[in-house]
C-alpha cells in the first residue's frame, strides 16, 4: 500500500522526463510479445477509465474541520455501460470524484453507487454531464473466472499520453488478505512481477485472457509482489450492487485460536484424525450466537469441508485456504452454513444463518462518516471510534490514552446503557472552563442526571440543566468524578465560538 501512495504523489515533472524512453520500450515489448496482439491491446484499453479523486479526512482533534484536500489518481474498469469499478480506498472520504478518458481529453463528474470498505471495492457511475460522449469510445470488460497458481496475469497502467503500459506477472500464491479496512480478510492472488511507476497508479486493473481478473490492491516494491483481489469477491460485490440496496459481505461472529498445540489438543480431547479451531469469542447477537455456538467449542467442519488445526481447509481450486473464505468469500448474507462442532469431546451439528456484523460500541471503521461531536462551553465531546484512536499515529496501540484503549480491548465493560461511548476529547480554554483546561479523555457517564448513550442523548441532557443554573457532568473515572459548568457562561462561550469560526456546535 505504501508504495502506491508514494507513486500517487510523484510530481508530473518526474514522469515527463522519462516519458520518451518508456514509449519506445512499450512499443518494443509489443512487437516481441506474442500473447497479446496490438489489436487485443487496443480493445482491452477501451475498458479503462482514469479516476481522479479529492480526498479529505475529518480532523480527530477538531471534529468540525476537514483535513487539507489531497488528490489521488487511479485506473478504473468499465464493468457495464456506465459503471466503473475501482477500490474502496480510492472512493473513501472523497469530497469530489470524476472520471477521465484514456487520452485525458474528457472528464465527467461521478458518484459512488456502492462501496465495500471490507472487501476494498467501489462502483462509480456518472453524476451528470455529457455521459453519451464520454462512453462513446469505451467498451465494458467481462469479469473473468478464477485463476490458478502459475497463471500469467497482466497489470495495466496508462501513460500520460494514453498508451498502455503492461506488466506481466505470475501468480505465486493465493491467500486471505486484508487490504483496506483492518481485520477484514478476503481472497487475494499474490503475483510476482516488476512494476514501474506511471500516472494513475493508485489501483490498477489486472487482466487475464482478455478478461478482468481483479484489481491490484497493493504492490510491494521490495519483494515485487502484486496483490490482486480475486474475481469471486468482485462477482459477489457486483451481484450485491444489482439492486439499490447494498448489503455487504456476511459474517459469522466468532474469534478463534488454532489447535496445533498437542497439550491443548489432549486437554480438549481432540483425536489425531481431526483438525479444528478453538472458539475463543462469540460476538453478541451474531450468527454464531444465534446458532448456539459457544466459547470453547471446536469447529471441525464447515459446509462439509474439514477444518485443519491451523484453520486451513482444502479448496478445489486453490488448495489450502483459510477457513474464513468459506464464510465471507463463498456465501452471502442470509445463506445457511452447516458447522460441525466438538463440545466436550461430543460431536454437535449446528446451522448458522449468516448476517452482517452487528453494531459495536466502537465501530471498527467509520469511513465517510463525519465524527459526531458536541461543543459545550469549550468542552469538546465526541463518540469514540477506531479512527479517533488511530489518529495517535502508527504506534497508537501504545500511544493512545490508556482508558480509551481499554474500552477498545474490553467493550463489554462499558456497553451497559450505551450505544456509543461519549468522552471529553479536549477542552478549549474559555471563561466557562477555567480550571478544567487540562481535562481530556474522560469517559462520560451522566450529564444533568441523564445516562449518556451517545452524542444525541448528550445534546438532550445539556438542554435540561439543574435549577441552580449549573450543568453537572459525571465521568466514569475521576478524579474528579463530577464537575460543574455554568449554564449562562457556557451559552455565552458557545455563541462566541460560533462567531470565531466553529461552523456548528454539534453534529449528530
Amino acid at each position, binding site marked *: 500500500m505504501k508504495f502506491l501512495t508514494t507513486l500517487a504523489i510523484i510530481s508530473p515533472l518526474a514522469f515527463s522526463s522519462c516519458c520518451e524512453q518508456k514509449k519506445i520500450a512499450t512499443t518494443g515489448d509489443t512487437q516481441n510479445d506474442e500473447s497479446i496482439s496490438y489489436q487485443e491491446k487496443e480493445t482491452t484499453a477501451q475498458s479503462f477509465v482514469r479516476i481522479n479523486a479529492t480526498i479529505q479526512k475529518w480532523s480527530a482533534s477538531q471534529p468540525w474541520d476537514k483535513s487539507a484536500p489531497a488528490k489521488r489518481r487511479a485506473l478504473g474498469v468499465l464493468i457495464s455501460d456506465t459503471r466503473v469499478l475501482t477500490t474502496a480506498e480510492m472512493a473513501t472520504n472523497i469530497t469530489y470524484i470524476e472520471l477521465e478518458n484514456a487520452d485525458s481529453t474528457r472528464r465527467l463528474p461521478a458518484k459512488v453507487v456502492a462501496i465495500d470498505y471490507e472487501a476494498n471495492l467501489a462502483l462509480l457511475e456518472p453524476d451528470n454531464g455529457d455521459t453519451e460522449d464520454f462512453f462513446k469510445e469505451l467498451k465494458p470488460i467481462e469479469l473473468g473466472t478464477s485463476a490458478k497458481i502459475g497463471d500469467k496475469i497482466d497489470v495495466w497502467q496508462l501513460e500520460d499520453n494514453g498508451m498502455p503500459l503492461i506488466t506481466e506477472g505470475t501468480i505465486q500464491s493465493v491467500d486471505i488478505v486484508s487490504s483496506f479496512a483492518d481485520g477484514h480478510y478476503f481472497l487475494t492472488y499474490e503475483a510476482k512481477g516488476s512494476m514501474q511507476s506511471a500516472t494513475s497508479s493508485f489501483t490498477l486493473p489486472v487482466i487475464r485472457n482478455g478478461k478482468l481478473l481483479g484489481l491490484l490492491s497493493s504492490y510491494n516494491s521490495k519483494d515485487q509482489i502484486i496483490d490482486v483481489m480475486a474475481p469471486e469477491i468482485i462477482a459477489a460485490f457486483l451481484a450485491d450492487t444489482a439492486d439499490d440496496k447494498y448489503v455487504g459481505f456476511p459474517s459469522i461472529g466468532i*474469534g478463534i*485460536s488454532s489447535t*496445533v*498445540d*498437542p*497439550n*491443548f489438543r*489432549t*486437554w480438549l480431547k481432540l483425536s489425531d484424525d481431526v483438525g479444528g479451531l*478453538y472458539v*475463543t*469469542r462469540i460476538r453478541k447477537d451474531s450468527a454464531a450466537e444465534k446458532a448456539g455456538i459457544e*466459547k*470453547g467449542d471446536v469447529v471441525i467442519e464447515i459446509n462439509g469441508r474439514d477444518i485443519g488445526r491451523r484453520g486451513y481447509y482444502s479448496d478445489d481450486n486453490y488448495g489450502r485456504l483459510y477457513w474464513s473464505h468459506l464464510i465471507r468469500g463463498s456465501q452471502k448474507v442470509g445463506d445457511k452454513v452447516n458447522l460441525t462442532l466438538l463440545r466436550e469431546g461430543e460431536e454437535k451439528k449446528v446451522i448458522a444463518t449468516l448476517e452482517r456484523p452487528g453494531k459495536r460500541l466502537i465501530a471498527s471503521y467509520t469511513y465517510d462518516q463525519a465524527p459526531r461531536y458536541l461543543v459545550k462551553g469549550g468542552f469538546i465531546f465526541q463518540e469514540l471510534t477506531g479512527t479517533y484512536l488511530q489518529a495517535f499515529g502508527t504506534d497508537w*496501540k*501504545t500511544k493512545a490514552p*490508556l*482508558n480509551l*484503549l*481499554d474500552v*477498545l*480491548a*474490553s467493550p463489554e465493560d462499558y456497553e451497559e446503557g450505551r450505544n456509543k461511548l461519549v468522552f471529553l476529547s479536549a477542552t478549549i480554554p474559555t471563561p*466557562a*472552563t*477555567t*480550571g*478544567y483546561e487540562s481535562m481530556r479523555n474522560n469517559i462520560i457517564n451522566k450529564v444533568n442526571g441523564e445516562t449518556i448513550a451517545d452524542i444525541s442523548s448528550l445534546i438532550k441532557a445539556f438542554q435540561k440543566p439543574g435549577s*441552580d443554573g*449549573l*450543568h453537572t457532568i459525571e465521568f466514569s473515572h*475521576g*478524579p*474528579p*468524578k*463530577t*464537575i*460543574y*459548568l*455554568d449554564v449562562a*457562561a457556557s451559552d455565552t462561550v458557545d455563541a462566541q465560538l460560533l462567531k470565531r469560526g466553529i461552523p456548528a456546535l454539534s453534529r449528530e
Partner: protein
Amino acid sequence: MLKSSIRLSVASLVVLTSLPALLPCMAQLNPPANPLAPLPPAPAAPQVQSIYGSIVRIEAATQVPDYREPWKAGRFSGGIGTGFLIGPNRFLTNAHVVSNARRLLITMHGSPRKHPAKIVHIAHDCDLALLEVEDFTPFQTLQHLQIGNVPKLESQVRVIGYPVGGNRISVTRGVVSRIDFSSYSHSRSDQHLVVQIDAAINPGNSGGPVLQDGKVVGVAFQGLRSADNTGYMIPTPVVRRFLKDIQDGTYDKYVDIGITTFPMFNPAMRRKFGLSQTASGVLVASVTPDGPCDGVLKNNDILTAINGNTVDAAGNTLIDGEKVNMNEIVERKFSGDMLKLSIIRDGKAMVVNCTLKPFPPSQMYSVQYGVKPRYTTFAGLVLQPLDRNLYAAHSFTNTRVRRLFAHYIDEGIFKERQDIVILTRVLADPVNTHVSGHVGTAIESINGKKVTSLKQAHDLLHPKEAPEFFIIKCEGLERPIIVPGNKATEASKRTETNYGISAPSQLSK
C-alpha cells in the same frame, strides 16, 4: 516530569579508568582562591581546607539485578559519588550513589587511602543514605559539617564534590533559582521539596554538600537533561526528616496522606460548593482505599486547612514564608502522627483527624534497590510480579497489564491481588513450543484458582501431587496454556538445565 529529569548518577567506571591514574600529592593541595566566600578572618585557608577534608569521594562497586532474566547474577558495574561527614562516623550521601552496592570505598580529599565503608541507613524515597567506615580513626580530626536551613531565592551557594572530568575535588557556584515541590527521580514515584540552583551539577557531584555561610543547605542529587544550568539539591527539611526518622534505628519511609485533590478555580465549581471568590480550600477528588484518609475524608469534601495551615484553592499552603504544596506539611510528619483536617462537607465546616501510616502497596510504583528480583519458573514459563522494575525492563503493551499497573492502588486492586503475576517469558521447550501470544499478559488463574500472589502461583504450579493438566489462564485470552501434569516436572528440569537457570524460583526479596 520524570522523563526529563535524570539521575545524576555516579560517573561510570569506563570514564574514570580512561583518565590518567595520577594521584595528587599532598603538596599540590593549595586551596583555590575563594573571593566570593563570606569574608573570613585571616586564618581562612585552614578553615576551607578542613571543609574540603570532610567532603569525601565514594567509590561504589555495584551489582544490578537483571529483571529480564532474574536468575542471572546481574550486571557488575560501579561509579563515583560524593559524601560528607555530618557526625562521628556518619557520612551523608545520596541513596542512588550506593544503591545495589557490593563494595564501598571512601577516600578523603588529598589522600590515596581507600577506606572500606558500609551503609547504615538508606532511604530510597528521598534519595539519602548514611554510611560509616570500618575504621574511623583517620577521620577523627575532621570537621563535622553543620546542617543549615532552606536558602533564600537568589542567594549564592557552593557545590563541592567529585564530578566527572577529573579525580580532584571540584567547586562550583550558583544562586538558588527555585524552591518547589518536585519529583525525585531515584524512586520514580516520590515528590518532595526540591531546591533548584544554577550551578553546574554533574555526574559524580551526587551526594555532595551545597554550602552557604559554611553550613550545608542541601545535598546535590539530580540534574535536568533538557535544560542547561539547572541542578537540583535535596533541601535540609528533607535531610533533617531522614536523620530524625533513623533515630530509632530503622528508616520507616515517608507517609502519604492518600488523597487526590483538584484545584477549585472554576466559578461554577465554587458556586456549587458555596465558596466565595476569596474562600480557601481545595476539592478532595479521590481518597486512596485503605489509606490514612479512607473513612475520614470523602470525595467532594473541601479541604480548607491542615493542622491549622490554610490550604488555598490550588492546594498550596504557606510554610516559612514560601507558598508550597500542602503535602509539605505531611512530608515532615512520621508514621503514627495525627493530622487535623479542616473541611467543608455538604456546606458544613468541620474538623476531622487522620492518623498517618505506612502504605505498602505504593511500593508498586517505586523502583526497588538492593533486593533480589522475585520470580518462579515452570515448564519453561517465567512468572514475575509486576512492579516498577519489571515494567522498566519489559515494555508491556498489553492494555490489561498497563491498566492493572495504572490503577493498582486507586481502584483497590491491591486488596485482592498482592501481586499481579506476569508471564514474562516462555523458554522454548517441546512442552510449550506451541504457546504463543501469551507472553506479556497477566496470569488470571491456575486450575480455576484466581492468582493473587507470586508465592500462591508458585504453590499452585508445584503441588504435592500433579493434576492431570495445569490450566493457566491469562487475562484477556480465552485460550489457556495447557501443561500435562505428568510432563511438567521433566520439562521444568530440562529448561532449567538448557537455559542455565541456576535457581528455579526466588519467592522473597
